[in-house]
Structure formats: C-alpha cells, structure tokens
C-alpha cells in the first residue's frame, strides 16, 4: 500500500512537471510573430532616433582603429552608430557562418575576398546592393572585387599591395645605391649583400606562404595583365618555358636565402627581417606597422617585384582586405542606415578614415595614403595584378606551395615537374568552376 501511494505521488509529480515544461514550451512558441515586442514610439519620431548597427570583423588587434573609423562615420551621420565586435581570424569564419546559417548575426560584417565571396552570395548570405551603393569613385580593381555576375555585394574600403621591402641601412652598408628593377639586377644586389656578410633575403618555405608570394610576384612580372588573364582562362600554361623559368629563378636565389629556409615558418622569416638579420623580404602594406612596432627606427624601403628583363614591367600584387557586406537577416528598419554606411566607406572621406586609422591602402580614386611614403609608392605601382588566390582558377596554387613546396627547390627534380603540379591545380579548378564566376 505504501509502495503504491509512493508510485502514485511520483507519477503525478512526473506528469505535472512535464506538463508545466511542455506548456511553457508550447505557450512560448504559439505566440504569433506579429505579437513580438515592437516599439511603441510613433513612426515619425522613430525615424529621428539613433539607429544602432552591429559590425563583426576578424582583426581583434585593430579593434580601436575600427572604432575610430566608426566614430568618424558617426560624426558624419550622427543618427547612426556602429558597434564593432572583433573575433580572432581563425575563429571568425566559423562564427560568422554559424550565425548566418541560422539567420542571426550582425547587421554588417567583414566579407571575405573572392572567390570565397561566391559561397556567401550563393548561400544568400549577402544583400545585393547594386542599386543602392554608389561605387563610382572606387578604383576598378576594388569594384571588380565586390562584383559577381554584374551585381555588387559589398562595399570595398581597403586593400593591401605586395612587393619587396628592404632595410635601407643594410643596402648602404653593402654599397647598394640603386633599387633593382630586373631579375639580373636583383641577383647582383643579392650577391653584393652576401659579399658584405649580410643575408640578402628572408623567406618562409615551411608553410609555403612567402615562397608562394615570391612565385606569384615573379610570375606576374612575366605574365603582365594579359598573360594573367590567359592563365585564368586556360590559354596560357604555367608549364610554358617562360613560366618554368620563374621556378628556376627562385632556385637560383637559394644561395641568397637565410640558412635552413625550407624549415622556416612565416612568423620566423618575418622576425628575421624585422630584427635586421636579413636585408629583404616579400612585404605587404599591412606588414609595415608591425615592422615599425618592433623597430621604430627601422629604415625601410620598398620596390616592386623586379621584371624578368627590360622588356617586361615591374609589378605588385594587390588583394582586398576589408569589404563591408550587409546580412540579409538585418532588421528592415536598419537597412537604410546600413546602406548609408556602405556608401560612406566608398567616399573619399570614408576611404581617408580607413587609411588614417587602419593603415590600409585606399580604394577611392584620388585619395592618397597618409603617413609612410612607402604606401604612396605602393599605390603608384606601374602594374598591379590581383593576388592569385582571389581568382578561382589560381585559388589552390598556394596549397601546392604549402604541401609540395620543397620539390620546387629540389635540384634532383627538374623545375618543370613542379610547374606541372601548379598547372594541374589550375586545370582542376577550371574543370570544377563554380556556378557564379568571379569578375576578373
């Protein structure tokens, strides 16, 4: 009897607890969408209120500079505030994708460059701003970067350019007076540095990062804009003799690289250059502030990738680093504010603010970079070709350098074998081209 009573009490408890839990769950969901809390402020007053936008990015180290940009925007548009949230680079992608996948996330977010941007467009994770954002003042390379199939999906506001940085004091010490413009001159300069007891060039082959930049820099100088377009379309092969010569040229530079360069990762190679242990290194505009932070008195110089010979042009490679996109899940009442922001960053005023605060190269016509004269030199490059990973056919060239890069320097293997691996990667990409193809 006692047992039975206990059972009855327990069952009732079980049922009651479950009923309450289920009831709460059901009640909370049965509430219709229209009953969601809404502002009671009259419409005409609501328009005059400040609109708060949220923005997610991937540079925690640049949180304050981004806040300064938002403050400049707020000064120009006092009715709109933009709140910045940064996540580390390695976690950003997972975070933004998870949020976008469930229809939440920020109002504005930092969009990856093409061809990854295609994934965001195909997944419906970006608002089409073709008719609402004015990019008429933006330079072509930046416009192309946010245009897919004739539609604009983001507002570009910063880019980086890669060439070669050097320590002017080490050049002087070795008696080098002229910046090299061709491969031959470059080899002569490196020999001069080596003879003076200076390690000429810092490179990272372990993760393939700097060897890859070296390759695309030298290859771009051989190809020029037209040749690069031909590589993208498959007409020009990376196994052609003039392209195999690029791999051979990099081999010829081996005596000038730091010792054990094959085992050197990116951060170590940068540290060698930053501390003046090597004279030169592949270098992007985004790297400069880091070098000056390590050595505020560093006497840095910059020159474009040397040309194969006097018939070719020197070149730089440029990539997009900050592009603002709108999350389709944005509250409709905030859409105008978001569009206003995207338009502002594409104006000279917005570009100047991005350059001043974040030290990125401006993407608006006529806006000169402030501060370091190297930045001005970078924007005045005689020939600028996109970084190869921003184009679908050449996307995985870097992967080949990362997973198979040692064989490029293996003297037992002919250089055309490595070139064939690079071309195989291009062929595979061309065979698996996505539905939406990036503008090139």
């Amino acid at each position, binding site marked *: 009897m006692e047992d039975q009573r206990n*059972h009855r009490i*327990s*069952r009732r408890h*079980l*049922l009651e*607890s*479950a*009923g309450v*839990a*289920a*009831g709460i*769950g*059901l009640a909370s*969901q049965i509430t219709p969408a229209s009953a969601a809390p809404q502002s009671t402020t009259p419409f005409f007053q609501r328009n005059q209120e400040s609109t708060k936008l949220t923005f997610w990015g991937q540079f925690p180290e640049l949180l304050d500079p981004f806040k300064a940009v938002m403050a400049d925007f707020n000064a120009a548009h006092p009715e709109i505030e933009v709140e910045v949230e940064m996540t580390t680079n*390695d976690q950003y*992608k*997972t975070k933004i*994708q998870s949020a*976008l*996948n*469930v*229809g939440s996330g920020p109002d504005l977010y930092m969009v990856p460059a093409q061809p*990854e941007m295609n*994934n*965001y467009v*195909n*997944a*419906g*994770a970006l608002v089409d701003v073709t008719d609402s954002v004015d990019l008429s003042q933006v330079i072509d390379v930046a416009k192309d970067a946010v245009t897919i199939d004739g539609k604009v999906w983001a507002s570009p506001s910063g880019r980086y350019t890669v060439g070669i940085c050097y320590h002017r004091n080490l050049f002087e010490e070795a008696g080098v007076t002229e910046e090299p413009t061709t491969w031959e001159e470059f080899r002569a300069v490196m020999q001069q540095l080596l003879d003076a007891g200076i390690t000429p060039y810092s490179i990272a*082959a*372990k*993760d*393939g*990062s700097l060897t*890859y*930049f070296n390759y695309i820099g030298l290859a771009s100088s051989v190809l020029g804009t037209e040749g690069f377009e031909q590589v993208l379309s498959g007409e020009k092969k990376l196994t052609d003799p003039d392209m195999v010569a690029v791999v051979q040229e990099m081999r010829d530079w081996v005596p000038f690289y730091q*010792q*054990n360069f*094959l*085992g*050197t*990762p*990116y951060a*170590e190679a940068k*540290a*060698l250059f930053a501390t003046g242990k090597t004279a030169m290194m592949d270098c992007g505009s985004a790297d400069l502030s880091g070098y000056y932070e390590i050595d505020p008195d560093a006497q840095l110089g910059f020159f474009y990738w040397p040309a194969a010979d006097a018939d070719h042009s020197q070149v730089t490679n440029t990539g997009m680093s900050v592009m603002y996109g709108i999350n389709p899940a944005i509250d409709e009442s905030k859409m105008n504010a978001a569009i206003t922001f995207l338009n502002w960053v594409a104006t000279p005023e917005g570009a100047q603010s991005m350059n001043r605060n974040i030290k990125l190269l401006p993407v608006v016509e006529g806006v000169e970079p402030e501060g370091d004269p190297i930045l001005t030199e970078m924007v005045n490059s005689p020939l600028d070709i996109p970084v*190869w*990973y*921003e184009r679908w056919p050449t*996307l*995985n*060239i*870097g*992967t080949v*350098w*990362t*997973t*198979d*890069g*040692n064989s490029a320097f293996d003297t037992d293997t002919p250089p055309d074998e490595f070139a064939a691996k690079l071309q195989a990667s291009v062929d595979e990409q061309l065979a698996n081209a996505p539905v939406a193809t990036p503008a090139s």
Partner: protein
Amino acid sequence: MAIAMPQAERAPNRDRLALVLGIAAAVLLLIALLLMNRLESRYAFLTLGAFVLVSAFFLTLTYPKRPYIAFIFPAVVIYTMFVIFPAGAAFRYSLYNWTGLGPATDFIGAGNYSEILRDPQFRDALWNNVQLFLAIFVIQNAIGLPIALALDTKLRGHEFYRSALFLPVIVSLVATAYIWQIILGPNIGMLNPLLVDLGHPEWQRDWLADTFLTFKLIWIVQAWQHIGVPIVIYLAGLQSVPTDLKDSARVDGGNSWQVFRGVTFPMLAPAFTIITITTFIAMFRAFDIPYVLGGPGGAPDGTTDVLSLVIYREAFGLGGIVGSQYRQGYAVAAGVVMFAFLIVAVSIQAIILRRREVAM
C-alpha cells in the same frame, strides 16, 4: 453498469499503450531535431513541447513496472540530441558538395567518398597515422614497460620519477609542440648551436624540413608527450599482480626473467589491451604536434601529413595566408571514413586482445 476489467487484462493494454507512446516520443524527438536542423525553430520547439508531453505519459505508464526507464530516459534523450543525431546529420552533409555556408543543396551521393578513396593525400596521411601508431606502440612497450618495471621496484625517488615522466602528459599538446619547435627550429632552435658547441657541426640539420627525419622527430615528440600514460597504466597493472603468485614462482626455482615471463607479463594483459587501444585512437586523432612541427600542409612535401590535418585543411583551408578552397562536405566525409575505420580497427583489436587475455 461499468464492468471492472480484471487486473491481468489491464496490464497488457497499459504495456501496449506505453510502447505506442514510447515510439511516438522517439518519432517526435526525431522530427524536432530534423526541424532544428532545417532552422525551423518555431515548429521545432512546438514539436519538442509535444515530445515532452508524450514522454511524460510514457514515463508515467512505465514507471510502476520499469522505473529504471525514467532514470535512463533523460540520458538517452541528451545522447540522441548531442551525439547520435549530429553524427547522422554529419553523415548527411557528407553526401553534399557543401562549403559550410547556407543549406546543403548540391547532393552528390557517394561522390565525396569515392574521391576520398582515390585521394592520394588521404591515403598517404592514413599510412602516416599507421606508422605513427606503430612507432609509439613499439616505443611505449620497449621503453615504457621497462620504466614501469623499474618504478615498481620502489627505487629511491620513484615518486619523483613517476611525476616527472607523467608531466608531459598534462602539458597542452600545442605547448609541447612549440617547446620542441624552439628546440628544433631552423633559426631559433637550440639543437643546432648545441651540436656546434659539442664539436659536431656536421650533425646540424634543417630538422623540420628533412623529408626523412621530420616525421621521425614527430614520432619522438609524440612518444615523449604520451609515454607517461602507458607507464602509469603498466604500473597500476604491476601493482595488482599478487605477490604470493610471484613468490610461489620464485620458490619453484624461477629466476627474475622467468617470473616476469610466466607470471607478471600474462597478468599485464588487460593493461596491454587498454594501452594498445587508447594509443591507437590517440595516434589516429593526432593533430596538434604534426600541425605545429609540420605545418598545415604536412611539410616537408606532405611527409608529416596525418588524417586530422587533411580534414582540417579541407574544412578550414590553410590558415588564411595563401588562400585555399573550403570543402566542409568533403571534410565531413573524411571524418566519417576515419570514424568508420577506427570503429572497425578498434573492434578487431579488442577482439584479438581479449582472446589473448583469455589465452594467457
């Protein structure tokens, strides 16, 4: 006039109703999870509410005769929600060409799986995992067992040695890898200058870029980090060997080796099984040390590539320095293949080792 149903007839009816409610609860849970997976959160919560109600009736009916069901029910639901269903969903994603963003729509069936079977990087990485396991297996038995035997003799300071040997196990794997990078690194490493100071400059190497040596060094680092585990397990096994058995073997005239061979070693069979299986799983999940010492691309030239690195590369690219393609559908498929391989391999090992335990 109501006819009272006999107690004996009511019970089967209640059991049948409980069974129907149990099935209904399972179906509702599955529907709720599917709706969540399709981001239909409103309907998912409604279905979950219905699931809770049906489950409550089910538990109320089953509690008098089978109270244990009420105790295991929450655990089963949680396990289903957070392990079984995600595993099933992962399998579903593995059938799509999916970048990880937005809904998976490009169904390719077994396309990812057939590509994995043809993928040389997957095959090479799997072989590297096998080599890694075999190397650690040999090292932990050739070095770990003798150390455990030595510690079991209660030599002076054995507690200090035991702690010191176990210390690398509790150090984070990434920290361990960076410690070794500082030792072996080509520009900041301590090993090469040490060799010069010892008068052997000709022994200097680019330790982390040698297609023959680098992976062997990863074996050593992995063994250094892991060896505390087999030592402790063997030590626990040795301490559970009854001393009277060993004593009687000695009385029968057995020398130390014969006692070890005939008494101690067979008694260590369960420890051997545990160590072998856990090492196998650990070495097939190895990621941190190869990632730091070999880089995301398994440098040099893929010789340090392991399965986890392949999966990581396909899912998240190469760390953003040089750009690469993201194929989360392919990465998930690789994860499923790795999971299936581990299940089969571990089951075979467990069966063989258990038989061996019985035979001994």
